């Protein structure tokens, strides 16, 4: 009987706390504004990096030159901090388009494009370097620039925030 009452109180307290915690999660409007984003690739010239914002996060869309693609695909896995093939970081048949989150995986600064030894990005905060595939080549950043979910709608249009035919949560 004491146990049941105690359990009842605990459940009640938990249920009461839930709306308070849940209210701190992203609200309906924020989620709605985070719907998939279409990006037209036609105005992006070869070698250019374009910044887009999706869900308040910066995303780099980079039209890589042939040389950059070649360099990125020829790197030995053993040389990488976070080994990942270049082909796994782009969509098949669209090797020149690199789409990555634009915040350094160390502490979220914005790396500067076309800079550093590997000519990908260089982070002005703590000196992390990324190559033309957005892979970390020098720390302190622990991982590669992550790839946002996106699909090619046509050869010249991508939709960020969609994967496998449906929008991500």
């Amino acid at each position, binding site marked *: 009987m004491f146990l049941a009452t105690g359990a009842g109180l605990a459940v009640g307290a938990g249920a009461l706390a839930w709306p308070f915690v849940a209210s701190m999660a992203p609200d309906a409007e*924020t989620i709605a504004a985070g719907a998939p984003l279409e990006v037209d690739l036609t105005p992006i010239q070869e070698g250019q990096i374009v910044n887009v914002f999706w869900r*308040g996060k*910066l995303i780099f869309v980079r039209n890589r030159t042939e040389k950059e693609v070649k360099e990125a695909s020829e790197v030995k896995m053993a040389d990488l901090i976070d080994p990942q093939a270049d082909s796994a970081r782009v969509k098949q048949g669209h090797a020149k388009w690199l789409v990555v989150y634009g915040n350094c995986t160390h*502490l979220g600064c914005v790396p500067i494009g076309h800079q550093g030894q590997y000519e990908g990005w260089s982070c002005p905060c703590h000196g992390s370097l990324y190559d033309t595939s957005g892979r970390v080549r020098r720390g302190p950043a*622990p991982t590669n620039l992550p790839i946002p979910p996106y699909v090619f709608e046509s050869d010249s249009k991508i939709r960020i925030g969609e994967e496998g035919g449906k929008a991500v949560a």
Partner: protein
Amino acid sequence: MSAHGNTYVPKSALAKWFESRLPLIGLVHSSFVSFPVPRNLNYFWTFGAILIAMLVSQIVTGIWLAMHYDPSAANAFNSVEHIMRDVNYGWLLRYMHANGASMFFVAVYVHIFRALYYGSYKAPREVLYILGVIIYLLMMATAFLGYTLPWGQMSFWGATVITNILAAIPVVGDTIQSLLWGGYSVGNPTLNRFFSLHYLLPFMITGVVVLHVWALHVTGQNNPAGIPIKSGKDAVAFTPYATIKDVFASVVFFAFFAYWIFYQPNYLGHADNYVPANPAVTPAHIVPEWYFLPFYAILRAVPDKLGGVILMFSAVLILALAPWLDTSRVRSCNYRPIYRQFFWLFVVVCIVLGWLGAKPPEGGYVLAARICTAYYFLHFLLVMPLVGLFETPKALPGSILETVTGPGKQVSGSGMPVGAAAAPSSKG
């Protein structure tokens, strides 16, 4: 609040009526008037009172600033400038609040190092000391939340960097981060809730301060000799002796505080925070406020993100273990010739860490930060236990009175009974 004998005797009928229903005046009297204070306290012991004055100053200026501040991403920066330009004495309130945060930390660091030097963390003051560490943690949280409110570049990027630190926590990190952000990145919901929490935490600090003072009145104060009060000759009454000394020291501290407010109001801040927040541009150097720099240096000394985060939090939490890590039976460093050297080395290491925290993490700086970080932890984990075991402390004085008047001498009283000065009935 205290177990001391209540020497307050209500005189008037009204006072008697009230005291028998709520013995508040008696409580205040026994805690802040007749409370025995070791007579050998030096000026480092005035920082407790200075800290209370700073807490009151921060709460009052903060409440007044909140009357004019707008916690929205679109208007926060301009509302701060509105305070600076158009609100009567708004510039004074804001500079008092911004520099007050720094002065609060100046005072708390003096207070903490005083506790470490004189062994104030040792039995029976462990709980008192740990409550102090909790206050320090709450102060850091409050200062961090407050620094985001002007919504300048450093506000925004500081918030981004620190909330990304939390994401390194395994399993629950991402959830905590999302609950703090209220979105997919630092943004308007983040600023709103940071303002709410920044307003809340000082009152939590006040609550823990009450416990801290309560614990102090149970164990009594430590003192430079680190020996207990043995007789009434070792002590003076809190009022007027400690009170006047605390008031004097607080006014001197406020003169120091005023210098920063009026003549160097932006010295302790960052120029970049006068640039409105911009999620697409990172400032060249993201540097936290000076009082966080030693911990920032420790964070960056480790090449691994999670490791750095763990070490940084450990650096604060290890403070709470000091009562059990220190094996010496002597409290005060005045009588610990060997440990005293290590104490000063520790102070230097903390200052160097602070300075390294402001430097870019490259080359020699990283190495220096690693050496200093190693010493920081070794000081607690190795030096404190070992030195306490092997050190031969100097002979302790026979009593607190002896440290003031010299051994064997009697007090050459001025002929006035001290009781007159501390006579309770005329006060309260």
